[in-house]
Every structure is written in structure tokens, then in C-alpha cells.
């Protein structure tokens, strides 16, 4: 069995599962964000006229993180957040992360950094980028609000079809100024936006083994942009190191790997040794080219952050390139760390000072402008270059703007020049 098959077999109390089997896996962690307001609504609806009390099956397995619109941008959002807080208090949900500088942040950073995700776990989230948590060897996938309400009621996910798995083997060593974001953009371009729909991407190879958990989170985060149900990196020594040293997990953790005779639907092999920095062009994530092909295009707004690339090493790359230099006069640069913890680490390391002195605006931890609901809106005809995960028409709030997606190195080098720039040619240090 593949890793995900092994996880699903364990979670549904079966000796084995095959592709296409329908299982009902017990859920280890059920995550939602502001859309918990809708989950609560649907949850109460399930219990209506049953005579049963509407209580989640196990409040210790619920996680709720405010990140999409923080601090609230409207009375409507603020009222939704207030309703969620009342639910959290009523049910004693400990894994609740409010709008705070100490323990707040984006759900896909908060879960790993607090040790909530373990190898072999089944994680569901009312967010499509829940695929991120495959970075820790968990089977993690996005669901809708009503499905989450069902999980809260039952403790398991109903009618999960065991997905086929594509084995992605990544060899070679990353060249300078090339990283996990370039790899996943390349893969999404190669597979296509629906190339892995109803499939899992299972990552192997020396370049994956050498990649820190932060990079694996970037990789698995965007598996959904190829349509995948989930991405997964089988847990290894790096996973155990991350859980112990960075997530503060004291107890023993058992990695889950694939069986030697695991059956894959197909294999995709990538050698990153000669990979160039990549860029996704408007208006689909799979419209990917080497950055050199669009170099020189003016950029109005640079965004560095998000659940994809708002981690400490992302900010470190940007700070190294921008330290002592200036963001181009006719370009705005917005930086939003993925969590309060990362913000504090970036402060301590001097990255925040480097970025602000270069002209960037460092915002609070959260989803920021990524999904176009909150801040950092674009004007008509403007161009954004962003380390986020989606460039659909209208994604960043204005359907009359253009969005490009890239790595922190490409974003930082382009901020200096004010035009899309290959970081190997310009600004690279």
C-alpha cells in the first residue's frame, strides 16, 4: 500500500484498502478558520429536531484559527468571528488561535508549528490548502463547511474514496536562487491544473530528503493546484527533527512509509539540478514558464507571504536580497509573515528591519491580500507578483488586474528592479 492507503486502512479499522474503495476514516484533526461560522450553522442544522444536544464528537480534535480576514475588515466578519468565539468557549476548544501576535497566524502554519499534525494522521480542513499538512506525513485534504459539520457530529469523514497515487521522485540538488516554490510551480505546469484530480502526489527522492519541513509545506500546499486531493512526504528524520525541535512534540512519533510493493498509478521524475526559477502567468496556476521568459514586465505590487511562502526561510531569502537596498520607487512591496511566531523570529533575526528599511510594508500575520478580501487591493490594469498560491482572475480582489506567482527570491529581486527579474541575474546575493 502507498502511504495514504496505509493511513486510510489504519483510520478505518481495515487490514488493507485498495484504490476506489469507499472508507469512513476516523479523523485525527478537524481544522477550520473564519468559515467555522458556516460550519457552526450547518452543525446545528444536523441536530435540529433530533432531540440530541449539538456537541462536537471530540473538542480536543477541533482546531479553529482566524487568519483569512484579520483583524476583521467589516462588521459582518467581526460578528462571524464573535459567534465562533462563543462556540469555542461553550465547547472548550483548546486548539483555538485568535487574532494575537503571540499565538496567531495562518492555519497552515499554526497547525504544524504547534505540533497538532503527526505522521500517519487523518487531517481535514475547510480550506483547499489543507494539503499542506502532508508535509508531515499526514493524509490531509480540504473539505467544505457542511462536510466539516458532519465530521464534527460523527468523528469520521463519510464516503471517502481511496485515491490513486502518483509517485513524484525528485533528484538532484537545488541550484542557487531555486527552491521548493520553483519545483512545485514546475510540477503544476507539467501536470496541469486538473492533472492530479482525485489523486495523491507522494514525494520521494534525494531533493525531498534534503528539503526542510518548511519547503515541504510549500510543496504540499500547492499540490491542490494540480487538482490533487493531497500531497504527502513520507515522514523521515527531518520530520522527527521538526516535530521535536520546532513544534515541541515530546512524545515518540511513529513515521509511516509506503510498503515496498506499493502500487502507483504512474511515476513522475524530476531532476532539479538544472531547474530555473519559475513563474505562473495570468490567469491560471498551471500557466508556468521559466521566469526569464517574462522578465522585464513592470510590477505594481510585490507580495511575500501566505501559507505557501510566509515562513522564516522565505523571509530570510527576501531580507538577504533587499538588505541595504531599496524597493523600486514605482513598486509597492507587502510582506506578511505566516504566524506571530515567525514574525517574532524575523524581528529577532533582523529581517523585519532589513525589509522595512528597503521600503517594504510588513503587515500582521495572516492571509493578507492573497484572497482579495481584506487589504492590498490592486488597481485596474495593475500587475501583482506574489509568492502566494493562486492567480485566478479576480483572486486578489480585482478581475481587471494581472497576477503572477513566484518564489521569494524572484519576488525580492523583482522588487529591487520594479520589473519581473530572474534572481540569478539581478539582485542575487
Amino acid at each position, binding site marked *: 500500500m502507498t502511504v495514504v492507503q496505509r493511513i486510510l486502512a489504519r483510520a478505518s479499522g481495515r487490514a488493507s484498502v485498495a484504490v476506489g474503495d*469507499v472508507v469512513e476514516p476516523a479523523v485525527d484533526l478537524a481544522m477550520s478558520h473564519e468559515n467555522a461560522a458556516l460550519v457552526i450553522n450547518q452543525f446545528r442544522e444536523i441536530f*435540529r429536531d433530533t432531540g440530541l444536544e449539538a456537541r462536537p464528537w471530540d473538542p480536543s480534535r477541533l482546531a479553529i484559527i482566524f487568519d483569512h480576514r484579520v483583524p476583521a475588515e467589516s462588521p459582518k*466578519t467581526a460578528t462571524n468571528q464573535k459567534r465562533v468565539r462563543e462556540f469555542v468557549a461553550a465547547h472548550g476548544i483548546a486548539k483555538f488561535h485568535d487574532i494575537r501576535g503571540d499565538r496567531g497566524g495562518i492555519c497552515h502554519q499554526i497547525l504544524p508549528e504547534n505540533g497538532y499534525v503527526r505522521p500517519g494522521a487523518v487531517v481535514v480542513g475547510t*480550506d483547499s490548502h*489543507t494539503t499542506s499538512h502532508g508535509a508531515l506525513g499526514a493524509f490531509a485534504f480540504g473539505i467544505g463547511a457542511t462536510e466539516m459539520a458532519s465530521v464534527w457530529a460523527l468523528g469520521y469523514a463519510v464516503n471517502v474514496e481511496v485515491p490513486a497515487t502518483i509517485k513524484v521522485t525528485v533528484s538532484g540538488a537545488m541550484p542557487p536562487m531555486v527552491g521548493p516554490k520553483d519545483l512545485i510551480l514546475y510540477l503544476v505546469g507539467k501536470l496541469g*491544473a486538473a492533472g492530479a484530480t482525485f489523486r495523491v502526489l507522494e514525494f520521494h527522492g534525494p531533493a525531498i530528503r534534503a528539503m526542510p519541513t518548511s519547503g515541504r509545506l510549500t510543496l504540499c500546499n500547492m499540490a491542490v493546484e494540480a487538482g490533487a486531493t493531497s500531497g504527502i512526504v513520507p515522514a523521515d528524520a527531518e520530520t522527527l527533527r521538526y516535530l521535536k525541535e520546532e513544534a515541541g512534540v515530546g512524545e515518540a512519533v511513529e513515521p509511516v512509509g509506503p510498503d515496498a510493493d506499493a502500487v502507483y498509478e504512474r511515476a513522475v521524475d524530476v531532476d532539479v539540478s538544472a531547474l530555473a526559477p519559475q513563474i505562473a502567468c495570468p490567469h*491560471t496556476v498551471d500557466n508556468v514558464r521559466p521566469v526569464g521568459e517574462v522578465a522585464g514586465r513592470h510590477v505594481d505590487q510585490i507580495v511575500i507571504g501566505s501559507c505557501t511562502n510566509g515562513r522564516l526561510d522565505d523571509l530570510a531569502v527576501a531580507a538577504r536580497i533587499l538588505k541595504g537596498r531599496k524597493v523600486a520607487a514605482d513598486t509597492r512591496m507587502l510582506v506578511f509573515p505566516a504566524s506571530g511566531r515567525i514574525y517574532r523570529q524575523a524581528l529577532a533575526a533582523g529581517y523585519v528591519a532589513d525589509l522595512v528599511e528597503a521600503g517594504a510594508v510588513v503587515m500582521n500575520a495572516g492571509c493578507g491580500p492573497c484572497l482579495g*478580501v481584506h487589504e492590498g487591493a490592486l488597481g485596474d490594469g495593475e500587475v501583482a507578483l506574489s509568492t502566494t498560491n493562486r492567480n485566478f482572475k479576480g483572486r486578489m480582489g480585482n478581475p481587471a488586474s494581472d497576477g503572477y506567482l513566484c518564489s521569494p527570491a524572484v519576488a525580492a529581486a523583482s522588487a529591487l528592479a520594479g520589473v519581473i527579474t530572474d534572481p540569478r541575474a539581478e539582485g542575487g546575493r
Partner: protein
Amino acid sequence: MSAATVVLALGDDVSTDVIYPGRYMATVLPSETPQYAFADLGAFNARLKAGAVPAGSVVVAGKNFGCGSSREQAVSTLKGHELVIVAESFARIFLQNAINLGLRLVEARGVAAAEGDELAVGATEVVNLTSGRRFPATPLPAARQAIIDAGGLIAYTRRRLLARVERR
């Protein structure tokens, strides 16, 4: 199999940002989301809000309809207008959300239709009555059909809960 008019014909990779833009995500209730359906396609949104699109009208699209966000508003907003979605393929979370909320959708490989065409949408076949072309429909897996048959996931889960209580 009943005939219905194609009111909107779209291409591949129609994202949830097109169906229900993120800036309206603070609106969550199915009773309130229909006003923002295809909000950035101004003329079509205006027709929906004016009540000029009859229930059962068809939206036709290419591959990967509903890609992107897990936002359930993208389904409830279409369900609110009782639109029927016929596409070459759907993104996974959108498909599951549609089944959970009872939005009618049909996957039909190679489907081709223009706005104004009349379609007969059946469970096993979609016929374009205007062009005369026929497209086989992919049947839903039994596990998903069970949720539809129960009347959606809320009713399905409620039934499971009550069964569990009775067993005790």
C-alpha cells in the same frame, strides 16, 4: 430527461473566484449567497438577480469547473438559483460540496454548447437539441449517489447520528 436552455457557456478552469468572488466570503448563509453568483460577470449576475433566469437553466463549462477554494458559497450561490451545471469535469472539493448541498451537476466528456442552445440533461446522457450532438454522462459513484438520495449531507449525517443513538 427535461430540456433546458444554456444561459452561460464558459471554458476550462472556472475557479471559485469567478463563481463567488472572495470579497463576498463573509456572507455565508445559503439564503444570502445567491445575490453574488458570478458577481464579476456583471450582466449575467444582473439577469440572475432580476429573476430573468428560470430554475433548471444550464451553465455549461469545460474541464476543472470549480477549481480553487473549498468555499461552499460557490455551490450554495448556484443552488440558490437552481442552476444545473454541465461540465467536462469538476474539481474535487467543488464536486463533493455540490453533492453535499444538492446542486445538480452532470459530468459530460466533450460537451459542447453555446448560450441559447437547448439541452436535454439526463443521468446517462446530455443531448444538445440545437446541434443534435449527444454526449455520454459519467454516472456518479454509488457512495456519492447515496448522499444525494438522502437529500444531502445534512440529512444523511442526521440519519447516521440517530442510527448510532438507537444502537446504544
